[in-house]
């Protein structure tokens, strides 16, 4: 992603000091993970776009109060994102139906940008739709948005171990849905696995 934690914190400090170019760099760094997290929870790409930009505007407005929260900027930003998505889903009476999304979203995708078959892509959408909201949040934050377990835990307001457990169960459910064989014994992660990030 091009920026390490120290660089991000430096940009945050500069942005909080009024350096708007620093906030621009933060947008460039985080907009794709935020968009992907949002897109995992809402139906329409237009809604994902609207929500993503509103999240960054909210972050800009709230940045003066970011100090002394004791939460990494990524966790703080995704907490804003998660709250925004929750509000959106509730107020619009929308429930992320990714199976429906998978069917509809085909119109947004150029045919040649899929390295795997369309059927396989749609199967992932269906598999994601059967996860619980919290499992989907864990996958969206950890895999699609690329957060650490700690950042995902901060964003979800949960313990890190809880997020690892949600992720573990989500991966198992996805594997079952997609008919992917389990890894060999000793390769499969568990919430306690030392290899599980």
């Amino acid at each position, binding site marked *: 992603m091009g920026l390490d934690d120290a660089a991000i914190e430096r940009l945050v400090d500069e942005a909080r000091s009024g350096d708007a170019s620093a906030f621009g760099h933060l947008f460039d760094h985080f907009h794709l993970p935020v968009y992907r997290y949002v897109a995992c929870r809402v139906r329409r790409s237009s809604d994902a776009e609207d929500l993503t930009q509103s999240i960054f505007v909210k972050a800009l407005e709230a940045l003066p109060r970011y100090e002394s929260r004791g939460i990494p900027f990524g966790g703080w930003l995704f907490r804003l994102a998660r709250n925004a998505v929750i509000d959106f889903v509730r107020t619009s009476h929308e429930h992320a139906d990714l199976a429906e999304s998978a069917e509809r979203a085909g119109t947004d995708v150029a045919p040649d940008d899929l390295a795997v078959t369309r059927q396989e892509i749609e199967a992932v959408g269906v598999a994601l739709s059967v996860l619980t909201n919290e499992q989907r949040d864990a996958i969206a934050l950890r895999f699609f948005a690329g957060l650490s377990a*700690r950042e995902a835990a901060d964003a979800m307001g949960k313990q890190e171990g809880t997020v690892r457990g949600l992720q573990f169960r989500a991966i198992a459910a996805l594997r079952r849905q997609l008919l992917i064989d389990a890894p060999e014994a000793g390769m499969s992660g568990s919430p306690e696995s030392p290899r599980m990030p």
Partner: protein
Amino acid sequence: MDDEMRDPIEPGEEELARRLQAYADARMTPSDEATARMRATVETALGSLGRAAHEPAAATRRFGWRRSAATLLAGGLTLAIVAGAAAYSTRPGAPFYAARLWTEAVNLPTAIVVRAQAEVDRLERRIQEARDASDSGDAGAADAALIAYSTILTEAASEVDGFPDAMAMLEATLTREVVVLAFLVETVPEPAMIAATQALQTCNMTLDELNDR
């Protein structure tokens, strides 16, 4: 984002990782046009702060405003509001209403309970603005005040999470305001009805969440 998280998928899960990545690339990646639109919106938010601070280069220098200018804006707007000189231009729906809201936000105290009280004060101001606007038939002002109410409430609810005193203060306020909002939904000029309904929904949901915590 630390290094240990970069690959949340275990060894042996490469096939699942490949499919998730393909899904993300195909269905969860904004187009270049969408990215440009999002960035433009953020730049506009930054630029509006810069222009309000009367920074000469703000219109042409993207992401160019400085904290000193923003501080001047906050101070200037605060003085103007106190003096009443800018009352018209900062009323709900007026051009500087957003800047006024921003000024309120950047001047919020940091101590959580004190900040919660300040947020409660802001919510009550928005309610009063919405009532005044509704009484005078000013749909635009009512709409702006109610939209601001929902935004402030969402932020306040997030801020008080985990602080029982602050949560109780917010809950007590919302318990009063939900009645006013229900009245506004019935009486506000029609163009502001959606904003009133959303404010009421946000209030009800926040109360539910506070009760659940």
